[in-house]
Structures are given as C-alpha cells and as structure tokens.
C-alpha cells in the first residue's frame, strides 16, 4: 500500500471526510510532509471506491458548494488494519535492532 493511500484510509478511519477535508487532514497527520494534489486524491478515491475500500457517505451544501463525504467500508477497515499491523511489525523489528546496536555505539 502506498503512503498516500495509507494516509487517506487513516484519515477516513477517524470518520467521514469530504475531498478538501481529506487533503487538510493528510497534511496535518503527516506534519505537512505530504500534500495531496487533487489529481492524486481523486485518482486514489476513484480506485479505492472501485476496490470497495471507500464509499460515499453523504452530501452537504456549504456556501453554495456541494460537499461529498466519503467513509471507510468494512473491507477498507480490514485493509488498513492489515497494513498497520505490517508496519507495526517492521517498526518493532527496527527498534529491536537499534536497541541492540546502541550499547556498542556508545
């Protein structure tokens, strides 16, 4: 799973978001390191919707503009859980090795 996809799913795990809400939350979550461009966001949303990981939630009109919200599906929740577990295992492995390295480097 690519980082933008992981971040979009992580944002949606916090509740339904509309397009710009996802862009804003991804920037905040990654501490401004990742800025999703609309081309990237809607490519990902189109693909995630087709794969059944994300689905439209509701529509609202704010200041005359339509906002379509998206939410995580059960399959999306499962995919994110699997990816998070995989990353967690990698982080654990890295930390274990770094801890083992530390006494020798000091």
């Amino acid at each position, binding site marked *: 799973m690519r980082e933008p996809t992981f971040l979009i799913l992580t944002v949606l795990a916090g509740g339904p978001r509309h397009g*710009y809400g996802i862009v804003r939350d991804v920037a905040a979550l990654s501490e401004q390191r990742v800025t999703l*461009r609309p*081309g990237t966001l809607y490519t990902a949303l189109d693909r995630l919707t087709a794969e059944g990981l994300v689905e439209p939630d509701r529509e609202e009109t704010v200041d005359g503009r339509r906002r379509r919200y998206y939410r995580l599906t059960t399959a999306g929740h499962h995919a994110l859980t699997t990816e998070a577990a995989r990353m967690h295992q990698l982080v654990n492995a890295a930390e274990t090795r770094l801890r083992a390295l530390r006494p020798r480097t000091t």
Partner: protein
Amino acid sequence: MSRLEERYRLLLRLLPADYRREWEDDMVAAFLESMDTGDAETSAYVADYGRPQLSEVASVIALAARLRLGGTDAPPRSYAWGEAVRLATLMATLAHAVMVTAGVAITTWLSGNIAWLPAPPPDWMPVAAGNLWRTAWDLADYAWLPAYVALVLGHRRVAQALALLAILPPALTNAVRQAAGEVPPSASPWVMLLLDGVLVLAMAAFHDDAAPVPRRRWLRALPIGILLVPVPLFAVQATSQVLRLLDWPGLSCVLVSVATVIHLAGRRPYRPARALPWSLALTLLATTILALRLVTMVDYGHQAQHATLLTIAAAEAAVLLAVGAPLAAMTIRALRRLPAAPTEPPREGIGP
C-alpha cells in the same frame, strides 16, 4: 460561478467526459476550498483573479494522461490509446537509441580506435572538437541510449530526464548558431525539437497502471535495429554518394512505411484486439512523420540540389501516405467498434 471556478472547470475539461460526470463537482469544490483564505476581501479577490496553481495543473494533466492513455484495468478504448502511445514512444525512442549507438561506433572507428577495422578514408576524418566542454556538449545526444534503456526497465522519470539531456544542448547550440548567422535559418531543427519534446511528454503514458514493458524483447530490438538500419546504411554510404540525399525525416518515412507494410501483411484478422494498438501506434507515427516530412521540405529551397531533394522528399511522403492512409482508415473503424464500457481485452505487455 466565479472566474476562478470557470478556470478550474476549464482545466478539468482535460479529463474524459464520463470521469468528469462522476468527479468534476467534487474536485472543483476541493480546489475552491483550498483557495479559501477565510478573509472575505481576499477570497473575493481570489475568486476573480486567482488561477489554478502550477502543481494543480500538473496533477490534473497527469490524471488525464492516466485516464486517457489507460493501463491494464482501463476501458478498451482508453487501453488501446494507452498501448498505442506507449508503443509509438518506444519505437521513436528506439530509433534515436539505435542511431546514436551506431554513431558512437562510427565515431570510434573514425577516431582510429578500432584497430582491426580498415582505416577510414582521410576525407571522413572527424573535425576536431574545440575543447572538452564542446565535446561533452556534442556527446549529450548519446543520452538517448540510456534514456531508451531506462524506459524499457520501467524508470520513466529517469528516461524523461535523460531524453531532455539529449534534446536541450543541441537545441541551444542550434539557436546560438542560427542567431550568430553561422548556419542559415531553418525550420527542421525546431520541428524535430518540438517532436522530441512531445516524445518526452508521451513517456507519461508509462504510468503505474500500465503493464511493464517486456524487457527482453525490447532490449533485443536495440542490436537488431542497429544491424537492420545503420549498418546497411553505413555500408552503402561507404561505396556510394546516393545516401547523402537521405535526411532524418526521409529515413523516418522509409522506416515507418516499411514497418506499416510488414504490419499490414502480418495482420491476423481473427485477432483484431491484439493488432489494434500496433495499428494505432503506426498510424500515429505515420501522421507525425508525414507532417515532419512536409514541413522540413521548406528548408530545401536554400540548397543547391533543391529540385532533386524536393522530388525525393515528395516521393517519400507519397509512399508513406499510400501505406499509411489505408492503415489509418482500418484503425479508425476498429477504434469505433470498441465498446465504451469496460470488458476484458487481452492484457499482455507491449512487445515488438
């Protein structure tokens, strides 16, 4: 609707209509929200005078390329266009790579560095370059070879960077020489620069959704291409003066005509889906090369043998038109027959 929204909707017209029906309003809302500063006066100014940012334009262009030049999961028509552009790009880059690789071999021979070959005639000796920088500048053209290898190996951005490295130094040199009056003004280098620029842009069709290029087949095409084109040309050149009348647009006409004839002769009517990307790729190449041939004929007006050169160029264009027109007609009919909705076409990697 504000002027800014109009500009965003105009930009989104790059995307296919069915995609716009699904996503346009949503995308415009996201664009406009991203420009919202929270201050009423500034927002009103931006609504009138704001423009899509360069990064937004680039992301929409990339999305349009991905959708219109589809990969393995795209609808049949988008997939056919995607495969055709990828094939045409590979063939054009291969042609550059073949010619520069042969150029390296010939330069090495002319420099007397291949001892086992007979010495070249004295009037073939290369003109000594002025200095190291000038030599390096002239060698930039050879970047087409690693650019082709990078494209085949799936490193699209590296290929684009290397191709730019091959294109820009000769373009700058030409601009300076034409401005200084060292060479007469001519359209040919600029038209070829434009086409090379289009080639670099067309490499965007090798996006993540596209199937990987079959490496072995396309890498093998490089030595085969050298044996089939520059080696015979060089052998003829060594014994006859006739090839001095054949320039790059002329050679391109001959190559595309031969490839089209081979394609038409070997086409299997019971496998139209497999043949279509090749037909479309050759149609694209034939159209481009025909335009190149016609435009570059203008430059013959200044040359001593202009009557002979014009006759040869007209014959090259006529042959290309004669073989390209039936292929184009068949290709357009086949494209129209393709269903708009996604089906299951054969999704093999592109191969020669």
